[in-house]
């Protein structure tokens, strides 16, 4: 990023969200590596010949320049770097890409830079265009967003007594942020979610696997997928305190 006295800046970002503004403008929410999330006005972007149009679509990776504003910055220039063409023609991949952006929007803060989160979002969007199982990528992404934002659930030891967990069914205490061993089940402080031994194994695999390339292609039956998704979703909802709106469409898109 280059700051100059003219109160402008230049950086890269992933377009997370857009809202219409006035007749032809949009407010665009962009996740950047060095400025955190920025909200900026893209003028004339809804007109067919708007100069910025096409560059600033949801999920796009862009280089852009903007000037600082009193309330909102103003985008002065934008160049498209990646619009994930493989995801734009596949509903399942596209819906998962939208989900990735919504989660990033919920876990990022304005002007609070997190290079790790930016890199994670960028890599996940790229991977969604390449892999055969978008569902698995989305679950891996959830665990790693929780990790880089400081909400990583404790799945290896009991959150109360720190004892190692035996391979069996357990419960996750949402407010405590992890699994309770059988002896500590009654001590939890929040809502509890049952987690089967198999689901626990999948969640640990997702959490421990550092890169998408090392995830492999595990065969998971529908019941197990539903359980893992439900547990992750409830854990995330307990943190952001609202529903993840795009999750429902992601499920529907996968079945069309």
């Amino acid at each position: 990023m280059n700051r100059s006295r003219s109160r402008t800046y230049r950086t890269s970002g992933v377009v997370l969200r857009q809202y219409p503004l006035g007749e032809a403008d949009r407010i665009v929410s962009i996740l950047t590596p060095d400025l955190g999330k920025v909200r900026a006005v893209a003028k004339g972007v809804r007109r067919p010949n708007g100069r910025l149009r096409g560059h600033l679509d949801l999920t796009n990776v862009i280089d852009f320049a903007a000037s600082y504003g009193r309330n909102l910055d103003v985008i002065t220039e934008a160049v498209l770097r990646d619009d994930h063409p493989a995801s734009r023609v596949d509903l399942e991949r596209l819906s998962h890409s939208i989900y990735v952006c919504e989660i990033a929007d919920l876990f990022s803060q304005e002007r609070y830079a997190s290079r790790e989160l930016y890199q994670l979002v960028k890599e996940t969007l790229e991977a969604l265009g390449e892999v055969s199982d978008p569902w698995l990528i989305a679950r891996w992404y959830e665990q790693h967003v929780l990790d880089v934002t400081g909400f990583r659930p404790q799945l290896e030891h009991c959150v109360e007594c720190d004892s190692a967990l035996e391979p069996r069914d357990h419960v996750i205490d949402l407010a405590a942020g992890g699994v309770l061993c059988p002896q500590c089940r009654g001590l939890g402080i929040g809502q509890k979610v049952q987690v089967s031994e198999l689901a626990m194994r999948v969640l640990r695999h997702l959490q421990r696997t550092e890169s998408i390339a090392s995830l492999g292609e595990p065969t998971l039956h529908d019941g197990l997928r539903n359980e893992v998704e439900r547990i992750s979703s409830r854990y995330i909802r307990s943190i952001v305190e609202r529903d993840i709106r795009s999750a429902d469409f992601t499920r529907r898109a996968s079945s069309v």
Partner: protein
Amino acid sequence: MTSPAAYTVAPIARLIEEFSKLPGIGPKSAQRLAFHLIRMPEQHAHELAAAIIGVKDSVAMCSRCFNLTEDDPCNICGDPGRDPQRICVVEEALDVLALERTHSYRGLYHVLHGAISPMNGIGPDHLKIQPLLKRLSSEDVQEIILATNPNVEGDATAMYIHGLISPLGVSVTRPARGLPVGGDLEYADESTLGRAIEGRQVF
């Protein structure tokens, strides 16, 4: 601090408040519009008021295509000169006007009244997708043109509808994408330019 509304005559304050409820109109623009109306000849003001009331009283949705209309079915659905075997699916009634201005399309329309916007909680059930499927089962349709906006939400909507209607054996098309007339090549994004090159035609 006393609000500026306290110094304004009550009916004017009310008018300003009503104008500021309109999309894209802030308090300053609302104030300008209100004072413009006051300076306007009385006849014009009455005509404007009558037009606003008239539009709310007489405009409804066409029961077939969901376009905004005074009569049901609308002028387009009721026109025997139109090709009933082609349906162009658009997001908004305004898109029908835009397509009609081209004079290039003589088929029928279906207005969805929005696009799937998962982050804003707008799913397929909020749109007129089910009525479209009903139309396809009861009408002899050969081609569906999915003319939703060429952005992520428009693409998601088009792909979702395509997934639902592809088993019906109807031909599904999407308008070509490319460079806007009068636009500058240097300002086109890679995506648009790439699609324009892919869809090039013999000169």
